[in-house]
């Protein structure tokens, strides 16, 4: 099936098997491998992207369901050659180790803080239930997200 969508600001079209998941379309067809796959059951959040501005686990959608949509992946999060504040905060706060969950964590957290500036630590911990990290114990991820949430509230 023919599918067409805008990914990181660029119009992309391809002929795909109807059953192709959006995450496989991004990774295999478009070679945007920053989006990861960590489970088969939509628990881990490694595949989190933004679809028309909303947070989405890209393993839960077929590519053809994203027809006409705007998709942002980790590769498209930075603007004008500058890291997104959430990327900077993860780096500054040692919010990552092996890095595999990181793209999904950053995509989910960036959208959360955009919609919830000033979120409390407790709200952040609760929100992050949908993204699993095995390395960091979440401590520094929460610290990074809180830093951005605080500065978003102050702005």
């Amino acid at each position, binding site marked *: 099936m023919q599918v067409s969508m805008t990914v990181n600001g660029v119009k992309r079209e391809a002929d795909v098997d109807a059953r192709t998941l959006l995450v496989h379309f991004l*990774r295999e067809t478009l070679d945007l491998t920053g989006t990861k*796959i960590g*489970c*088969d059951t939509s628990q881990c959040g490694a595949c989190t992207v933004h679809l028309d501005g909303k947070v989405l686990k890209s393993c839960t959608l077929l590519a053809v369901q994203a027809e006409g949509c705007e998709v942002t992946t980790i590769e498209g999060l930075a603007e004008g050659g500058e890291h997104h504040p959430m990327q900077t905060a993860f780096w500054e706060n*040692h919010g990552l180790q*092996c890095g595999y969950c990181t793209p999904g964590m950053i995509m989910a957290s960036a959208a959360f803080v955009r919609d919830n500036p000033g979120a409390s630590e407790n709200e952040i911990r609760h929100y992050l239930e949908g993204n699993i990290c095995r390395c960091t114990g979440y401590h520094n991820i929460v610290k990074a997200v809180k830093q951005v949430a605080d500065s978003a509230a102050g702005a």
Partner: protein
Amino acid sequence: MTTRIFGSGIKRREDPRLITGEARYTDDIKLPGVLHMAVARSPYAHANILSIDTSAAEAMEGVAAVYTSEDIGDGLAGLPTAWLIPDSDLKTPEHPALAKGKVRYVGDGVAIVLADDRYRAQDAADAIVVEYEELPAVIDPEAAAQEGAPLIHDDVEGNIAFRWAPFDKEASDAVFDEADVVVSERIVQQRLLPTAMEPRSAMAQFNPATQELTLWCTSQNPHIHRFIISAVTGLNENRVRVIAPEVGGGFGSKIPCYPDEALVSWAAMQLGVPVKWTETRSENYLITIHGRDHIQHVDMAASNDGKLLGVRATVYAGMGGYLSTAAPGIPTILHGLLYVGPYTMDSVYCESIGVMTNGTPTDAYRGAGRPEATFLLERMVDKVAAAIDMDPAEVRRKNLIPAFEDGYDVAAGLTYDSGDYPAAFEKALGMAGYDDFRQAQAEALADGRYLGIGVTAYTEMCGLGPSQVAGAVGFQGGLWESATVRVTPTGKVQALIGASPHGQGSETTLAQIIAEELGFPVDDIEVVHGDTTETPMGWGTYGSRTTPVTGAALAHASRKLKEKARVLAAHLMEANVDDIEYADGSFSVKGSPDQAQSIQDVALMAHLAWNMPEGMDPGFEESQFYDPPNFVYPFGTHIAIVEVHAETGEIDLQRYIAVDDCGPQINPEIVAGQIHGGVVQGVAQALCEGAIYDENGQLLTGSMMDYCMPKADMFPNFELGETVTPSPHHPIGVKGVGETGTIASTPTVYNAVLDALSPLGIEQIDMPLTSAKVWAAIQSAS
């Protein structure tokens, strides 16, 4: 230089590629013409294979080939077990890459499909028809060791793969016979699923003209993978190149060489095109090694005044359907030798029985044997405290080994390197406000609230380890590391290491070591790892060994370079070598500070070699093989405070305090990250994680929907403290810290929960302490 780079929590050098999605993990690498491999796997835990019909799969669109073990024939040797414990009557049953006539766990590979796309490959694997004759299965290791249990391998009598009991039983029994107090418990160290976030993946490419095989794979130890892939394929080792690109966590599960890695290699050799395989998470839970799986019968002896006299245990350790790469070493060498812990206890006894079962093979999982030992000790110390009605912190205080700086021999046969256990212990108790908590706990209880505190004092053996010891305990490899510090003519550094970090931040910490030793800016130092062709031989990243062992190799190589630089600088400045002073990457002549040569100047002159001292070779590069003289022994004390809600059985982890001593910290932020992550993994064993099989050997926790991974909202912010006791035998004094959090935290939280429940008379609940189990225990107690 104003700020010393060693000891500074600088940002990680790995992160820019990781936070932007630019890093390339194995599955991210694409090769033209690649075929995808899918594996048809056994749905039964134990069955004879009567027939395999691959015709439907072969006829499917996009399928290039289908193979069974018959097609492979002797094209692939069985996967070897590489830790052969001496004096244990060890049996190593054959582990073929695809099952021959019989399957031994759910997920055992039966056939492989190669197709042009991963969806089609899986469709075809599903279309393979296998006729099975189901056999009775056994999962529980103690049950599998009983007479009449289903026999899993014909050549492993009674399913007993080994029996290891190196200590003096009579001496141990005498201690127990004479002791005032003996406490006992049956402890279940449940199976855990390591769950590195990156599933395993392997891609192989074979060049028939050069007979060279390149294997990209998710490995913690590419040089060991090269060694084993060479052995199973028959290719010369120098024709095998293993590349571990970015690797997304391992926790031990990416140490072993698995059938899948051998199969992609063999298939690529057959077909002459690249072959790739990536496991799904469901596959990962079925086929990637599991951890723990002990049933322990433990006794501890003590005197009425709280002196710990001895510990003894009989351990049934589940090995699963085959003996994985390092499996026999985990419940033996890495377990029983830790039975003294941080205490002045003179008697230990351990009988560890490795038992074949119909579960997934087990092997090293973060801590590997040492968490199982530490839990057993710490649980029993709390039981001793209860038996003699003494505060558990006081029992520990009375028995801690006093501070020592250079060697302490313990009854289990080890020589601890250095420690100040009382200092870490008192610091942690102070941070927790232990005495005040006991008061608050009593008041809360009067209000019907159940608070609890758990305290763990630990030491552990890591930085594996002296190669002579490795040989003596049957490890089929060395445990040294090598490293090369190579400086380019323009003064930039490449450090080539044989170890293979996969999330630990070693590209940063190892660069900090070199920066400290030689004065190069840390941003000018790249650490190169993971490719057997680019890097010198090394045994890999596991056992908290990369910072201590590779770090020592780099420190020594750097010091050799510094000495060369000093001599060359003296020659260039026409000064006596003895008059050369070094500071912050610059060599100057004593008394005339304006005359100086920077390390970069010297590197350039060494490369140009226009004007060298007599006898000095050109170039600016040094290598070091480093075999540690002893293990390193980090230590500390962890404390957890919990509230148990009696109405629901829910556990609220309110505070977690960790005081760890890993010697001088190269990068405190990275050290803290290791502890945070380790603590969460260990706490999760106490509270939520556990692989569950049904009586037929089906894994009921086969996905993240069913296996409870720890989430962010289960934890408070951690309170970390430190003491600093250098290792006396290490060039920069550092000890490993990768596993301490996991080793200490499970008993800490478990004991806290049982402390909270003690007013109800509850003395034991099997882990994990789910709210359902805790609620049921409360109901039956009241």
